[in-house]
């Protein structure tokens, strides 16, 4: 029972801290937090290119493809420091989602063709999984890819596609045949977004922003060389990827940082002559969250320790996504509560002087968009089904 890091790991942590402190400066931070006049895509791409230049863009990849060769402990330290510094994670679709599928199941040609431009962030990827009729029940997907000799002809609709408006490529699950089980007959295709027949339609979300899209495919021709692995076996590859998506969803360090921010704002907000941080009811709300987060931090450490020891994550890992997202939502809720009367004010209608708060718009945006956290990546209800079956044997 010991949570000490080795001297070598502590030295590594110092190196990471120093790099973040130097490179993630106020300008980059302002651009990435969506300050007026900056566009998110160029801001995040330029930050990712800095990480690429440092050689730290893809800690999860094998060394031969451009990974860092870090130990599990180093990867954990890196992610923790990133969260504590308030630095957004890299856009996951290329680096964390499709790349592992390509280097695990792809051909040598596919690796050579796709991995370098994912690594240096020249190509932007998006994920074509969900469909109007296939959400949590992903195997119900019906977008079809008909084999036609040298190519597939793709028809159908993908939805909730984050950042499709920026994307150069989309990785899709498509139906290539009707198997006995619904999971059979699904294939994993890489599709160039410039191919004729693809239309991207924006979906504005309840935070008033546009990050989601619907992607329509009408007789889209995709060369067979863009098929990953074997035809009809795509579900297997996708499942491996989904497991990848669920790890790292606790975002403990990010939540710790948000909670510190919440305390600072609560100390500054005055209600009836007293700071909100001294309000006994608000204190109870804060400590409900803080105590849960203190526990989750150790749940994450337990998972990490068993993985660092070469083991598989134990049953405790399955609750990381559920608890992690519930906690971040609860912090968003209190941020918005602190904004009080200004929580509903729109920055497009009121100047920040009139608004009275510099954080109200951000707090509302995070609260509204934050509702998605318990829906995506396998909704929290689906996660509970997974634990019921896999852990409790129900």
């Amino acid at each position: 029972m010991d949570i000490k890091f080795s001297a070598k790991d502590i030295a590594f942590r110092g190196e990471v801290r120093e790099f973040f402190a130097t490179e993630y400066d106020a300008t980059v931070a302002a651009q990435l937090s969506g300050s007026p006049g900056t566009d998110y895509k160029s801001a995040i791409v330029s930050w990712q290119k800095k990480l690429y230049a440092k050689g730290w863009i893809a800690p999860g990849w094998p060394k031969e493809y451009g990974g860092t060769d870090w130990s599990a402990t180093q990867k954990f330290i890196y992610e923790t420091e990133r969260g504590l510094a308030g630095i957004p994670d890299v856009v996951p679709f290329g680096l964390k989602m499709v790349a592992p599928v390509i280097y695990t199941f792809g051909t040598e040609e596919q690796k050579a063709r796709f991995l370098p431009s994912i690594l240096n962030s020249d190509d932007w990827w998006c994920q074509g999984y969900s469909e109007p009729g296939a959400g949590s029940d992903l195997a119900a997907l019906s977008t079809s890819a008909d084999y036609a000799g040298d190519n597939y002809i793709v028809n159908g609709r993908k939805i909730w596609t984050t950042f499709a408006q920026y994307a150069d490529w989309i990785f899709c699950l498509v139906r290539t045949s009707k198997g006995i089980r619904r999971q059979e007959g699904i294939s994993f295709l890489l599709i160039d977004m410039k191919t004729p027949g693809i239309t991207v339609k924006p979906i504005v979300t309840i935070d008033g922003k546009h990050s989601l899209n619907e992607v329509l495919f009408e007789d889209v021709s995709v060369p067979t060389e863009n098929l990953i692995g074997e035809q009809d076996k795509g579900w297997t590859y996708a499942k491996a990827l989904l497991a990848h998506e669920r790890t790292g969803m606790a975002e403990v360090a990010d939540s710790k940082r948000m909670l510190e921010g919440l305390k600072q704002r609560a100390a500054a907000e005055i209600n009836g002559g007293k700071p909100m941080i001294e309000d006994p009811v608000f204190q109870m709300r804060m400590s409900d969250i803080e105590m849960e987060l203190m526990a989750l931090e150790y749940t994450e450490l337990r998972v990490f320790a068993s993985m660092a020891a070469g083991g598989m994550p134990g049953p405790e890992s399955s609750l990381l996504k559920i608890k992690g997202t519930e906690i971040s939502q609860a912090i968003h809720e209190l941020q918005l509560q602190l904004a009080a009367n200004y929580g509903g004010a729109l920055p497009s209608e009121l100047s920040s002087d009139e608004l009275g708060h510099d954080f109200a718009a951000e707090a509302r945006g995070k609260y509204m968009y934050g509702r998605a956290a318990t829906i995506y990546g396998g909704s929290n209800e689906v996660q509970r089904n997974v634990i019921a079956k896999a852990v409790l044997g129900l």
Partner: protein
Amino acid sequence: MNFEFSEEQTMIKDSVSRFVREQYDFDTRRGIIGSDAGISREFWTMFAELGWLSVPFAEEYGGFGGNAVDIAVVMEELGKGIVVEPYASTVVVFGGLVSASTNTDLKEQVIPSIIDGSCLGSFAYVEPQSRFEMTDITTTATENDSGYTLNGVKTVVANGGTANKFIVSARTSGEQFDHSGISLFLVDAESPGVDVKAYKMMDGQSAATVTFSDVKVAESQLLHTAGEGMDLVDQVMPQILIGLSAEALGIMATLNTLTVDYTKTRQQFGTPISSFQVLQHRMVDTFMACEQTKSMLYRGLCESKSVAEGETDVEALAKTVHALKATVARYGKTIGEEAIQLHGGIGMTDELNIGHYVKRLMMINTTFGDGDFHQKKFNQLSYSV
């Protein structure tokens, strides 16, 4: 970094676990509770022989030299059997205070008698008016020529009916709620002027109201410098709260296992009720509650170790153990209530073990401060301008 137990800890754990499994079934426990003594002296002697009573004490007094992790290991396993023998009150609480005492003569005299099983000790600190506030003390210790004279009433004294030694908190100076001016005395239960009225509590364990009427206590029975008793209590409190929380964790894990197993066998509508999604999700929530409690306990264990090594400040540990006790309160309630609900009618019966596990959890909640009490303390340490 690791969350494994050492070889020695694993041995103790297995030893207590085997005892609970093989010798402490529910009927045996019921028989012990129904007996006059309310505890089994034979088992207590066996605990001594197996070395369990020596776990937290320094080697120079014949102890095992264990730390918070060792105590937690024993307490968690005892919790799984809702063992009524007074390990917590004698070894963890009473023994913890004696260990922290600066009175070497007293330690040399008392610790070996705890280890050999002859001393059953209890900390008498609750007063009729005090609720959970330990500084709310009206019991007085007045200095005289030969020492002190104690007067006052202590209530709900854990295992007060069986204890042959008490540590009594009494005011030697200051006002009712002052932190300073409180002194801790070792008092023999047989001393003239000590009146013990014992009764059972809902968890089957005994307690007592102990009245002190002009009880003469020698100065040599002071655990420390007069007036600084609360410092000693504060010092030992993390270990006490960790021990009780570990016992609670053992109970919570057991309730969850029993409930999951029951739903797999209970048939309704022609199918095991475990197949119903609404029940599955509730059991997932109680599973998560237990894992989170375990993580909080491990946080307390790791931090108390690093406090001992001078690497974590005492206030961080204090914050953590308040959070731990509050977490045990919240999730203990969740798990207990869900266990009864998911068992249905049978869960309501005195005959089934479920309700007895739940009642012990409820007692742990109100021992040394309930969830709200500790959350408020946590807030005081965490939130200010």
